């Protein structure tokens, strides 16, 4: 495998970074980097770290990162995951208030402990932490329950004080969304599967409306809804497809609607991308408007109910037959 670290990879331009991934020769990982790169979204770091975990020791090559901003990679713990010496000599400061380094979540207890420790690390007000811990819990539990990944979930995040945004990435090297959904749903391709996974009430564990005792198929719809509400990017990459939720455009009166159908959201999509065996999710979360969380839940309640009613209607409605 090969992956290239560019000057900058934000969710807005993450396509270029993803297209630079070469999944051939899966028993090794060669990393290349520009000399004066600036910054990589945590989703990129989570991807690289999760790839490294699939390899035997010594199968990762990485050039010495000369750029000063390379210290960011060291602080995020990337080189530890890669098993290579960074050659950087930096003083590790307390990470509180700035970032969550790369973390591997292997089981439910890991996740509960991580969420408990994470909130104080980010020095956030309880109301600010609300959507973040919600998103991390649901995304990581998705990995633990559905991905069948040997290495669990890899995640990291960084807080940007100036923009008051948390950028979060989570990756796994499991079976991917299409294989997970295919246990109960027919999908045409990876892109179709990603969009189906964003539909409320769709879970790989059953095709039954209402889900099973453990799964409702609501998690990704909730998270997409949080991103829509907060005008933020949200990217899912699985198999050879990527779905990117773009910042929403409001009506003239400032109102907006949540869509059960991901096709109706303002988004970009790409198929035929380099094959990612597993699932990658990146999201930016603005902390400016935290009072919206309860209002968002009201919107979700309405949209969810409407989606189920429409689906039932389509399923059971029969057309009169005339001869």
């Amino acid at each position, binding site marked *: 495998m090969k992956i290239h670290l560019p000057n900058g990879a934000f969710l807005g331009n993450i396509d270029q970074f993803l297209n630079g991934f070469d999944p051939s020769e899966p028993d090794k990982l060669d990393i290349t980097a520009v000399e004066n790169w600036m910054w990589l979204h945590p989703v990129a770091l989570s991807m690289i770290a999760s790839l490294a975990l699939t390899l035997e020791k010594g199968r990762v090559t990485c050039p010495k990162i000369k750029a000063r901003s390379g210290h960011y990679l060291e602080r995020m713990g990337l080189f530890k995951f890669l098993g290579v010496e960074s050659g950087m000599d930096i003083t590790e400061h307390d990470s509180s208030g700035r970032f969550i380094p790369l973390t591997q979540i292997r089981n439910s207890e890991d996740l509960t402990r991580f969420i408990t420790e994470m909130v104080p690390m980010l020095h956030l007000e309880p109301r600010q932490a609300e959507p973040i811990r*919600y998103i991390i819990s649901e995304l990581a539990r998705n990995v633990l329950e559905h991905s069948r990944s040997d290495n669990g979930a890899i995640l990291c995040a960084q807080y940007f004080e100036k923009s008051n945004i948390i950028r979060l990435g989570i990756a796994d090297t499991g079976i991917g969304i299409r294989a997970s959904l295919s246990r109960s749903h027919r999908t045409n391709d990876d892109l179709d599967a990603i969009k189906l996974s964003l539909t409320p009430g769709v879970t790989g564990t059953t095709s039954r409306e209402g*889900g099973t005792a453990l799964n409702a198929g609501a998690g990704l719809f909730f998270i997409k809804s949080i991103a829509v509400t907060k005008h933020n990017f949200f990217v899912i990459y699985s198999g050879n497809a990527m779905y990117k939720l773009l910042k929403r455009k409001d009506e003239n009166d400032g109102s907006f609607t949540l869509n059960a159908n991901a096709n109706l959201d303002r988004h970009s999509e790409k198929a035929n991308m380099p094959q990612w065996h597993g699932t990658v999710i990146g999201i930016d979360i603005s902390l400016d408007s935290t009072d919206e969380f309860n209002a968002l839940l009201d919107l979700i309640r309405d949209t969810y109910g409407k989606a189920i009613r429409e689906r039932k209607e389509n399923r059971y409605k029969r057309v009169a037959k005339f001869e």
Partner: protein
Amino acid sequence: MITLNLLESAGSFAENKDLAQSLRLEKIIPALERGEEVVLNFDNVDGTTQSFIHALISDPIRIYGSNVLDRITFKNCTETVQKIISIVVDYMQES
């Protein structure tokens, strides 16, 4: 009547579905089977996830029908917790 204090078992952010499943299988369903009422006390639980609440109460609604909600009381819920419970209760009845 049995009362389950969610803070004790699930913490102030109730998100661990495994715990929710244990509570459902070991406490909630047996109590409902005995014809008892169940009080889910969310005192000092400041947040939860839809997945947790689903794992806790969706099966009782599916098994006993929506009338079971007359025998389950959600106590001391914050506004956020209330709203998440309402979403799950709604979609289980719509399904």
